[in-house]
């Protein structure tokens, strides 16, 4: 009898705990989604509707706002998205290819500076990029590379964090025998890397491509210091421009639409690939 009582008590206890946990989860879900929900709602309302008061439901001006934002004279958002896209996709390709190449060089070959090279990359991994900004800006001014995409793309060849991820991944999927047997078959070293190693690394490369694309798409600090010509600006710079413009004169529906356009490409990719992306978060950071 007493035993029954106790198990009954434990059952109720567990039930209460479950309710509490789900309540916390629902609250956090609400917190994560509510601001984006309001963004979408407000991007469908005209300036007058927005001034008139709060609404929890969409109104019919989405297309009109989209048209206004897309053709705005001072903030050329399609151009900004194109610029951001060019920079971000170039970064994604360079970062993943060269990080994999570097990781492969250090993983497979034996050479004198192998260990120092590895330790050096690990040591600089945590240094924030802002620390070298002053010199970088000056150097780019001297080389007349301001208002040019190259200074935003080329540095992505050296990405210590991506390198580390690739190295970790290689250790778990790339046995030395594969490389050696390809050599016996007479394949050159670059061909082995491009045609045998890269396909094996595909999942890691895909994950890192997404992450570096997103990082570059969202990057604001350095681009804002280097790009000031209207036709060279990237999306985050335009968003900042929106913030410093005279606020009261703005069509707010258009402002919400600009914000939505800035985050939409990443949001769509995420909604399609979320399972894959979330798996990728841990693969490099936590081994085994």
């Amino acid at each position: 009898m007493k035993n029954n009582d106790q198990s009954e008590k434990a059952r109720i206890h567990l039930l209460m705990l479950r309710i509490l946990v789900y309540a916390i989860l629902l609250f956090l879900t609400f917190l994560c989604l509510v601001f984006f929900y309001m963004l979408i709602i407000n991007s469908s309302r005209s300036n007058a509707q927005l001034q008139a008061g709060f609404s929890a439901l969409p109104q019919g001006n989405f297309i009109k706002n989209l048209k206004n934002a897309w053709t705005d004279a001072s903030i050329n958002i399609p151009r900004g998205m194109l610029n951001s896209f060019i920079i971000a996709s170039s970064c994604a390709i360079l970062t993943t290819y060269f990080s994999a190449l570097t990781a492969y060089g250090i993983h497979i070959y034996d050479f004198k500076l192998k260990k120092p090279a590895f330790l050096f990359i690990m040591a600089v991994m945590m240094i924030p990029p802002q620390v070298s900004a002053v010199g970088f800006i000056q150097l780019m001014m001297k080389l007349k590379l301001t208002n040019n995409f190259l200074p935003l793309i080329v540095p992505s060849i050296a990405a210590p964090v991506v390198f580390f991820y690739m190295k970790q991944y290689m250790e778990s999927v790339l046995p030395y025998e594969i490389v050696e047997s390809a050599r016996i078959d007479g394949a050159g070293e670059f061909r082995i890397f491009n045609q045998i190693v890269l396909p094996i690394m595909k999942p890691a490369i895909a994950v890192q491509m997404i992450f570096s694309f997103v990082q570059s798409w969202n990057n604001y600090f350095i681009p804002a210091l280097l790009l000031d010509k209207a036709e060279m600006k990237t999306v985050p710079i335009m968003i900042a421009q929106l913030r410093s413009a005279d606020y009261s004169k703005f069509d707010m529906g258009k402002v919400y639409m600009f914000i939505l356009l800035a985050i939409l490409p990443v949001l769509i990719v995420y909604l399609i690939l979320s399972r894959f992306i979330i798996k990728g978060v841990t693969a490099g950071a936590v081994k085994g």
Partner: protein
Amino acid sequence: MSKEEKVLKKKSPRNAKWGYIFIIPFFAAYICCTLIPQLMTFYNSLFMNYRDGLTQVGPKFVGLQNFVKLFSPDNSGTIGILKYFGNTIILWLMGAIPQIVVAMLLAVFFTSYRLNIKGQQFFKTVIYMPNLIMASAFSMLFFTLFSPVGPVNQLLLGAGWVDKAVDFLNIKISVRVLISLMNFLMWFGNTTILLMAGIQGIDQSLFDAAMVDGASSTQTFFRVTLPLLRPILIYTVITAMIGGIQMFDVPQILTKGIGMPNRTSMTVVMYLNNYLTTSKNYGMAGAVSVVLFIISAALSLVVYSSLSRQYKKPARHRKY
């Protein structure tokens, strides 16, 4: 690496050359785009070099004068850089403490067999999403939502909770709360996923043993989960710290770069950015960068030693 592999590698000395060829692009790019600029930054910190209106002052060698200026009080008696470091630390703590506590709780919830939470994929997808959102756009969104004429104020006024619109962006505490809330939302999902992976890496038999011994779930958490999670937790905290000292996009956009009210939400990198944009004061910007470098180098050293300790010990954790 097995012995056999080592022998194989030794047999082909031409390999050494390829090792160098493969790592050259990385190092060339790093030296040109980061190392040289970094040295130039340090060098700059020793020069007076700025623009005053249309006239260029310097560059003129001044020794450590920029650093002296950086750490001496201004007209109102505050030492700028210390104030901004203080702001950065406060803003970071306000976001990072709830971030780590909530992430820890969620990680325990999600990995608990007893609770058996349904819809995990959905929750994970939702909580990770803000991490990928453009920080500047997210901040602009908060600015519009919380502006005096924004929907939040409309809602408060409509419900009669306030008599007149609250100027959230001109009140010290609300600006700080908004910045930390954004940082929290952007990072707690990421931390949850990392900690979950950490907990899943712990041998299940340890939890079973604790249960057989009659440990409560609180005891299991503090005596089994937490100690074994320590390495990952340290890693998480320190990477969060390094992210924290770089805090820029969110407060910069929200406060239009001025850290209002009265520079109480101005971070160190915003301060650096101010020197770079408005006055083109490369000397002072260099000095701020040097201070920033020293602090992040010290933090990296801590990560490095804690990580190397972690790598020496993993066998012990798994054997029990």
